[in-house]
């Protein structure tokens, strides 16, 4: 039986680690490679590096960065931010990333998902979606809307429909990031996560809102998520990976404890 995964997201800007609150006001907090290595040794199951500048000029820095990470950590990690083409995805994959995350560019041109899945495989193609709660309308019946460009631009696209479309196009995994919950530390968006996890047959990583170990437990049980993504609660030292995993293990969640 597969274990539930603890995933840590590191926002990277110009090779430095940053953590955002509600996607604004980012501040740098250190060397991401050293951090990644520390989390790796402390038992994180997977890492996500998000290039929050995602500019074209930054591409080569990001490739070097991925190479460096891949020589330091020996668990799967993914990279996201500004991936616009099969060439971008393939370069990151070849540099050592197990998976790539697409987000805004896939909303702009959804064929990007099938193109990347065709080139590097569905298992390596993650569709990340930033989601905001809205009043349900005819176009957005689920009451959850996709927002892009780091959570600032509404799209009019229904999040549930987009998740199902993403799976059909070949995404092998979904990251559901709640803009409403992100940075609040009040817990994951359980209803949103469960709604999407129940509608697709690919793994779902819940993101946004983790403040306490109970929140992880909740989203891995009531939220039906396969993995829980955390950031600030480990970046600022409130909890270690081991503490989070021991908590989950103690409550009967199957997690990887030997590392």
């Amino acid at each position, binding site marked *: *039986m597969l*274990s539930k995964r603890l995933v840590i997201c590191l926002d990277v800007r110009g090779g430095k680690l940053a953590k955002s609150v509600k996607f604004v006001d980012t501040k740098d907090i250190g060397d991401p490679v050293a951090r990644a290595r520390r989390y790796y040794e402390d038992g994180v199951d997977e890492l996500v590096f998000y290039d929050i500048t995602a500019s074209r000029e930054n591409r080569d820095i990001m490739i070097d960065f991925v190479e460096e990470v891949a020589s330091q950590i020996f668990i799967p990690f993914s990279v996201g931010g500004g991936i616009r083409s099969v060439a971008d995805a393939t370069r990151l994959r070849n540099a050592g990333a197990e998976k790539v995350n697409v987000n805004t560019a896939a909303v702009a041109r959804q064929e990007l998902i099938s193109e990347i899945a065709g080139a590097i495989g569905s298992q390596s193609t993650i569709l990340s979606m930033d989601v905001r709660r809205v009043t349900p309308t005819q176009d957005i019946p689920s009451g959850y809307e996709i927002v892009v460009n780091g959570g600032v631009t509404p799209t009019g696209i229904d999040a549930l429909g987009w998740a199902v479309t993403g799976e059909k196009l070949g995404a*092998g995994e979904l990251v559901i990031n709640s803009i409403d919950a992100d940075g609040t530390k009040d817990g994951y968006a359980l209803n949103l996560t469960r709604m999407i996890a129940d509608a697709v047959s690919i793994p779902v990583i819940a993101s946004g809102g983790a403040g306490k170990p109970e929140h992880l437990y909740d989203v891995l049980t009531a939220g039906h998520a396969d993995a829980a993504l955390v950031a600030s609660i480990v970046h600022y030292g409130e909890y270690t990976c081991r503490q989070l995993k021991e908590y989950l293990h103690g409550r009967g969640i199957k997690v990887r404890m030997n590392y």
Partner: protein
Amino acid sequence: MGAGKVITIIDYNAGNIRSVLRACAEVGAGAVTTGDPALVSKANKIIFPGVGAAPSAMAYLQKTGLDVAIKNTFKAGIPVLGICIGAQIVLDSSEEGPQKCLGLVPGKTVRFRLNDKLLKIPHMGWNEVVVKQPHPLLDGIGAGDEFYFVHSFYPRPDNQQNVYAVANHGIDFCAALGYRNLFATQFHPEKSGRLGLELLERFTRWEGR
């Protein structure tokens, strides 16, 4: 001696070669990558990695003559470690396509057929590997030890004595097989943290017996 031997990682256009190379570096093993059958024929120790699909992998091996080189080095008693696709195409055939595979170990690679709708394919993530028979490369692996998997097919050796470890995904399937100087894992030791690196380190010391 074994630890001093350079490992030859077969590069046959099937991804993740560099992950394996970096993992070898991490455990202090000298390793080179090559797609040249002549160099594979002269190797002292081989890692046969791979992600992707069995049909394209086999087509590439046949086109380049690597298939013959791998068979000959296996017959010569050189230690071989297969990983993922490298654990599948060492068998006679694969349900992934009509092609013949390398046939180093009697058996067939088959697709997961799962009744439980909650079980997802590909089988992707961390899962416990349960040792069924002792093997030098599995030394020290104990209860609850997990490794990283990404696959939709799994190897099914004809003879149970070739199955050294299993994992469970709806059914118990072969997670590691062994036959003479060949050992192969369906999981990815290069992506399985400390436990995976330790397995690679044991391979650097293994003489194939």
